[in-house]
């Protein structure tokens, strides 16, 4: 259970040297664009671009390999579920029907369905590289200041950086409590029945939650003693001005999104239909 969560590691690449604000903005822009558009050409172009930027950042493979496997499993299951539940969704969206391979009963593989599912996959895949880049290539202490700079209230930004700060601690505490409980014979493994397992999980959650509540008291008392939250604004230890490189990247990202939106909605539909 010692799986390490994603961690920042500086490879010195140009991506790492970009301002956190830039990376966050690009991530948000790409997310919104990826959510709205359904145009295969734009999605493909954006994916190729973000993948090459990702490769350029030289983030070592072992840092995200685990995540990659999860992504693959999740997408495979999701694709399968879509096909099982709605084998004709693509036909419905694109309005034509090219049968490729009848499977059984109502399940017939159509070109439209394949194309539609490719689009669903692309929409999800487009968001992943910028998200990982923001997470892996931004110094954690720059996180909060970046969020604050793009308009998130500083208290919320600070809460997010508290989350990142306390994940390893809470994880450690969870491990300690769970090992201690297991040593006393509280079994969490597959060998126990479901109801019993739930009860045993409760036995671990109870001390964990009470310890967490106590931690909240302590941390908030410490923050209050230091006068946190007195003023409407605050300064950040880690906040750098935008350089020319950042501005260029930002302008490019805005242009890409604008172009993607224009191409997508040119014909009044968010879908790109190659079957007409």
């Amino acid at each position: 259970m010692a799986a390490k969560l994603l961690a920042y590691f500086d490879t010195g690449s140009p991506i790492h040297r970009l301002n956190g604000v830039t990376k966050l903005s690009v991530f948000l822009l790409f997310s919104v664009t990826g959510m709205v558009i359904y145009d295969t050409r734009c999605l493909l172009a954006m994916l190729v671009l973000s993948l090459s930027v990702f490769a350029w950042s030289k983030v070592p493979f072992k840092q995200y390999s685990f995540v990659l496997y999860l992504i693959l499993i999740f997408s495979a299951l999701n694709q399968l579920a879509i096909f099982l539940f709605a084998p004709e969704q693509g036909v419905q969206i694109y309005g034509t029907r090219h049968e490729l391979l009848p499977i059984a009963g109502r399940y017939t593989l159509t070109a439209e369905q394949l194309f539609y599912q490719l689009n669903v996959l692309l929409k999800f895949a487009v968001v992943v590289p910028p998200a990982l880049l923001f997470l892996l290539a931004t110094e954690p202490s720059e996180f909060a200041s970046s969020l604050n700079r793009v308009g998130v209230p500083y208290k919320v930004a600070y809460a997010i950086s508290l989350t990142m700060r306390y994940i390893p601690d809470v994880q450690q505490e969870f491990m300690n409590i769970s090992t201690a409980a297991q040593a006393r014979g509280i079994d969490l493994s597959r060998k126990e029945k479901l109801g019993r397992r739930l009860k045993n999980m409760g036995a671990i959650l109870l001390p964990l939650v009470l310890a967490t509540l106590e931690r909240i008291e302590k941390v908030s008392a410490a923050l209050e003693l230091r006068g946190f939250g007195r003023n409407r604004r605050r300064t950040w230890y880690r906040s750098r001005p935008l350089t020319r490189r950042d501005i260029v990247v930002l302008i490019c990202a805005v242009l890409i999104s604008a172009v993607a939106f224009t191409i997508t909605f040119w014909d009044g539909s968010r879908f790109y239909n190659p079957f007409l």
Partner: protein
Amino acid sequence: MQSSKGFSVKTIVAIGIGAALFVVLARFGSIPTGIPNTNLQTNYAILALFALLYGPWAGLLIGLIGHSVADLLSFGPWFSWIIASGVVGLLVGLLTRGIRIHDGEFGGKGILRFNIAQIVANAVGWFVVAPVLDIVIYAEPANKVFTQGFAAGGMNIVIVAILGTLLAVAYSKTRTKRGSLTREA
């Protein structure tokens, strides 16, 4: 100790650390039910509990931040469900306003209200918000997303009803009841 404007310091810290707890439990605290790909997610008990303890804004933000970070750390963000988590936290917080659990008052009535609140919140979040957003954002097939929503929502209701209630009762026992001191004659 309300700060000059906006959230109190305690709410902010509760959001931050609560979201961290949510993330850790999303990763390590899920119990497989035996049906493939359906787990009992203990982190939703935490979400409901923290919404009850620290209010609707904490619930909303713990849901949004916790689910986003948990998704980013596993398979990338799936926005419709992230938003649904936020809605669940917000609604639990709103509907349990007035339960004075910090004063150690969480008896039968409180338990009932908390559970009605969580059932309503989970129903809105997973039976309505998540599937509808799946359709709007990802154009996924309706029968698939509603099946998923009902499965997830149902299990979350069960987990909050059992673990969430248990944790809330345990917490209320650690608090000193208001007016519990009597003057000796």
